[in-house]
């Protein structure tokens, strides 16, 4: 089945991971929250599917465009 990587829109750090491997998610769901420039930046799923991998942990630095979650598409 097709897999899709969800990327971070910004450079920052991982603040809270609000999903886990195996979760069913839909387009629009918040997967994790990053902190950047004192703002909380949600990482939002752009796909419907199941999370197969979470590539970062809390407090990790992330770069703009970095893949943070892998989703297997429905």
């Amino acid at each position, binding site marked *: 089945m097709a897999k899709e990587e969800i990327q971070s*829109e*910004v450079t920052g750090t991982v603040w809270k991971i609000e999903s886990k491997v195996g979760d069913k998610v839909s387009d*629009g769901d918040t997967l994790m*929250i990053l902190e950047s*420039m*004192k*703002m*909380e*930046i*949600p990482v*939002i799923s752009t796909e419907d599917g199941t999370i197969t991998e979470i590539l970062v942990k809390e407090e990790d630095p992330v770069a703009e465009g970095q893949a943070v979650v892998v989703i297997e598409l429905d």
Partner: protein
Amino acid sequence: MSWKRSRDELDKRRRWAEAQGGAANVERQHAQGRLTIRERIDGLVDAGSFQEIGKLTGAEAYVGAALKHVTPAPYVMGLAEINGRPVAVGGEDFTVRGGTTARLDKRKGGQGGFVEDLAHQYRIPLVNLIDGAGGSVTSAKSRGHTVFPGVDSFDRSIDLMGEVPVVCAVLGSAAGGPAGRAILSHWSVMVKDTSQIFAAGPAVVERSLGQKLTKEELGGSAVAVDKAGSIDNLAESEEHCFELIQQFLSYMPQNVWELPPTVSSDDPVDRCEDALGSIVPEERRRAYDMRRLIDLIVDTGSRFDVQPRFGKALITCLARLDGRVVGIIANNPMVYGGAMDGPAARKQVRFIEMCENFHIPLVFLVDVPGFMVGLQAEEAGVLRDGMRAVYVASQATVPVITLVIRKCYGMAGMATCHKRGLEYRLAWPSAEWGSLPIEGGVAVAYRREIAAAPDPKRRERELEEELREYSSPMRAAAAFGVEDMLDPRETRPYLCRLVKLAQSRLGTDLGPKPKIGVRP
């Protein structure tokens, strides 16, 4: 039939033109992952619609009195249609002497030339498919003198900016004149990995500055699109590039004397999305996806991002509301909380000027905490860039609708309103505004009181709470300080109605727009 010999010769000359720079050069062009100019035009325009002009141009080779071959001029151009609408289209033929200039009685295109005159005379969009390296010092040897800059002037290219839509696609390595030509456009695009643009290429840079850089490092999309913003959009392939050009032109009028085309939309005007009601998080520090918000409001699938990779604190896009074209300017809370830095301000200015030029009404979706602050921003001249955005917004004459989604602060907030027009401002319940945000603002205004308090941190928080009470947009609405409050779900029908209303006004303001004064 009579004139057979002449007609045969015409056929032969046309075949030579179609052979371009010869099989070996065509193959080399393909090996670099690039199409030839003829394939590009075929890929871009409606099938069978290309009417070439100047097909016989080229360098003739005679043996005695017998014509042996014509090497075509390195520029192909003519008239075509895109989605049934006429355009002037042209581009360098890189397979012929690397797309350099031909010695003809007059230019075919590329920087002025017949194709630009064609767009001017018939008031139709111009599409430049750029794949050329510009001037060469070797021309001095063949001419016997050096050529003064501007012998091929940009005057027509510049005049077209106020007359018809000009699209430039960079499809190879563009330096010098062709690079400059690409910038003189309302919208430009380049192709990932196979195109580069720079004032001068790696050899000149190494000789001048000792910097050793590849073409891609110097002028690939990571520089030209993402950092410099000198080219607006990035295409994944040449085919994708042609699709983007077709899409961009679908929002444009044929010229400034006509309105942008309205299409029939099957997206109901009264589509009120529940998701809009909760898209802005109640936690004030929490960002949200502004593009998603836009998609919930505009006609399904109608958003076309302009400059999506540059000045990312701002989103500028063309879209449709009930089939009518609008220009949307929205702050992006995901990037620096939506604060306006230099690139975002320049992007806003460029987009407003384009919409103003082509009579496209503007919708601001506002969530801006102000100009970007800090040493880096000041050194980059954020004040001048930011005030230029205020200046250009003030001089706009197209109808402007301001909808405050969340924050609207300071001069950056001012740049989203149209005081000289109707100043029609709408707000969602999540809206807040002022001359500067309470955080930080309190620390400045009550500095002595805070310092004198037994627990300064606590006093600061208390003062912030106290002032926040006044920041409800409903209080401002009661004072008519904002024209109306919307339930977010009502946004689409409300905006559709206003954009429909704007059509008569837009239709009575057609023609070129003179610009007065000196932009800061």
